[in-house]
C-alpha cells in the first residue's frame, strides 16, 4: 500500500483502549489462578519443522512461529504453570483473518489434560467475550456430519470427489492431509455461528499432542476452538516422550524435503529438555487479535491491529 494515508493506524483510537482492557483482563485472569507470566525469545537459533508453517529467517536466526519450545524448556526445568503474551511470525499468512505478525496468548498447565484445559479456555473466553454455550465435536464426526464419510475408511477417490464438490481440483494422488485440511476448513466455515471445540484429531494431525485410543481407534488429544467459523485456539495434552517427538520431527522434515521446502535444522534443545523430562501438562495457543476482533465485531483482524502488515 502506498496510499497517502498509510501513516495512520489500521485501528480506531478507541480500539487501543479495548485492546489494553482485554490484555489487562487476561493478565488478571492468570494472576488469579496463580499462572506465571513469562517472556521467551522472539528471535532464536531454531524453529519448528511443521510442513505448513513457514518461519521468517533473519540474520541466521528465526522469528518464532510460537513460543512453544522455549516454554516447554522452562517447564522441563521446573517452572510452574506459565503463560505468555507475545508476537509470533508466520511467513506469507496474510488475509482477512491472518497477519504475518500477530499476538499469541500461549499457556501451559501442569497436570491438566485436554478436557480440563478446554474448560479453562471456556472460562477465559467467557471472561473476554461474555458467556455462551460450547459444543464439542470430534474431528471425525464433524466431517462425517458435513460430508457423510468416515475418514478412516474413505478412499482417496472419495476424498477427491468431495474436494471437487468444494471447487478444488484434487486427484486420488492429492495427499489425504491436504484434502482433510480443505474439508475441515469448509466444514468450519459452514458451521456458522457459535463456539465449537473440535476434539480428537486424527493421529496424522497430532502435531505435538499425545495419542490415545477410544473405541479401538487412535486419536490425538488435540483440540481447536472455533468461534463463529474463525479458529481461535489450538491445544494439546502435550506429548512428553522425546523419542516420539524425534520421530515426528523427522517425519515433518521428510515432508518438507519432499515438497521442496527448506528444511531447518531440528532443535536439539527441545529434545534434550524432553529427555530431561517434560512434566505431564496441557498447553494451548490462542490468537489474541482474532479474539479481540470477535469481541469488537470487526470482520477481520486489521481493524484491531495498531498497524497491519500493509502499514507496518
Amino acid at each position, binding site marked *: 500500500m502506498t496510499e497517502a494515508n498509510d501513516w495512520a493506524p489500521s485501528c480506531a483510537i478507541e480500539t487501543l483502549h479495548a485492546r489494553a482492557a482485554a490484555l489487562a483482563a487476561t493478565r488478571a485472569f492468570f494472576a488469579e489462578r496463580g499462572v506465571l507470566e513469562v517472556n521467551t525469545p522472539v528471535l532464536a537459533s531454531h524453529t519448528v519443522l*511443521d510442513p*505448513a*508453517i513457514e518461519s521468517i529467517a533473519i540474520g541466521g536466526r528465526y522469528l518464532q512461529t510460537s513460543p512453544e519450545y522455549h516454554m516447554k524448556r522452562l517447564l522441563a526445568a521446573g517452572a510452574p504453570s506459565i503463560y505468555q503474551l507475545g508476537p509470533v511470525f508466520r511467513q*506469507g*499468512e*496474510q*488475509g*482477512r*483473518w*491472518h497477519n504475518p505478525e500477530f499476538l499469541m496468548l500461549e499457556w501451559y498447565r501442569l497436570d491438566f489434560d485436554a478436557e480440563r484445559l478446554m474448560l479453562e479456555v471456556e472460562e477465559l473466553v467467557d471472561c473476554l467475550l461474555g458467556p455462551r454455550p460450547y459444543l464439542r465435536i470430534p474431528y471425525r464426526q464433524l466431517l462425517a456430519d458435513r460430508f457423510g464419510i468416515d475418514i478412516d475408511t474413505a478412499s482417496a477417490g472419495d476424498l477427491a470427489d468431495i474436494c471437487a464438490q*468444494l*471447487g*478444488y*481440483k484434487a486427484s486420488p494422488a492429492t495427499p489425504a*492431509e*491436504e484434502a*482433510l*485440511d*480443505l474439508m*475441515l*476448513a469448509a466444514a468450519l*466455515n459452514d458451521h456458522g455461528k457459535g463456539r465449537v471445540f473440535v476434539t480428537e484429531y486424527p493421529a496424522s*494431525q497430532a*502435531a505435538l499432542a499425545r495419542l490415545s485410543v477410544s473405541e479401538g481407534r487412535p486419536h490425538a488429544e488435540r483440540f*481447536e476452538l472455533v468461534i463463529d467459523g474463525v*479458529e481461535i485456539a*489450538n491445544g494439546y495434552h502435550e506429548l512428553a516422550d522425546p523419542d516420539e517427538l524425534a520421530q515426528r520431527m523427522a517425519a515433518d522434515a521428510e515432508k518438507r524435503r519432499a515438497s521442496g521446502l527448506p528444511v531447518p535444522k531440528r532443535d536439539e534443545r527441545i529434545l534434550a529438555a524432553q529427555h530431561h523430562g517434560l512434566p505431564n501438562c496441557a498447553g494451548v495457543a490462542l490468537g489474541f487479535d482474532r479474539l479481540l476482533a470477535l469481541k469488537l465485531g470487526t470482520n477481520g483482524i486489521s481493524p484491531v491491529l495498531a498497524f497491519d502488515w500493509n502499514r507496518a
Partner: protein
Amino acid sequence: MATYATNEFRPGLKVLLEGSPCSILENEFVKPGKGQAFSRVKFRNLNTGRVWERTFRSGETIEGADVLETDMEYLYNDGEFWHFMKTDGSYEQFEAAATAVGDARQWLKEQDVCSVTLWNDSPISVVPPNFVELEVAETDPGMRGDTAQGGNKPATLSTGAVIKVPLFIEIGEVLRIDTRTGEYVSRVRD
C-alpha cells in the same frame, strides 16, 4: 500472457479459468492453523456473467486473460452483428455477436457510447450507458387527466424493448430509461 500466483489475485484481475475469461471478485486466504493454506476465490465468468467459486492451493498459478474494457460508440446492426467503434480517435471498428451483446441489445441506439469488453480483441460483452433516451413506437392511447399517480401500461420502444410506462405516455414521445433496472425514469422534452 502472464501467469498470476494466488497471492497476486486481486479483485478486478482478469484470468483464464477452465478456458473462460474471468474477473476475480474476491480472494480469501484460508488456512487451518497447522494445515495447508488455500485461496478461496470468487470469479465472474465474463462470457456468461455467472459467478464461480474455486479453491486453490496457496501458491498455485493461473494464466492471465487479455481482457480490456473500452468505451465504444454503437454504429449499426447488419442483421447478424452489432458494430462498434472506439472513441479514442482510432476509429477502430469491432463487430459483436448476439452472445456478446446479450440483453444490452434492447437499449442500443446509434451513437450511444457503451462499455465493450474485449477478450483477445473480440467483444465478449457490452454494457449500455446507465441511461438511454428512446422513442415510444407503440402503446395504448394516453389517458389525459391522469398525469400524477397510479397505474401503468406496457410500451414498445424504438429498439423493441417493452417497458412499463405511466398511463399518460403517448406514441412518439422520447423517454429516459435506466438500463440497469429497465425502468422508465421520465419524459424527455425537446
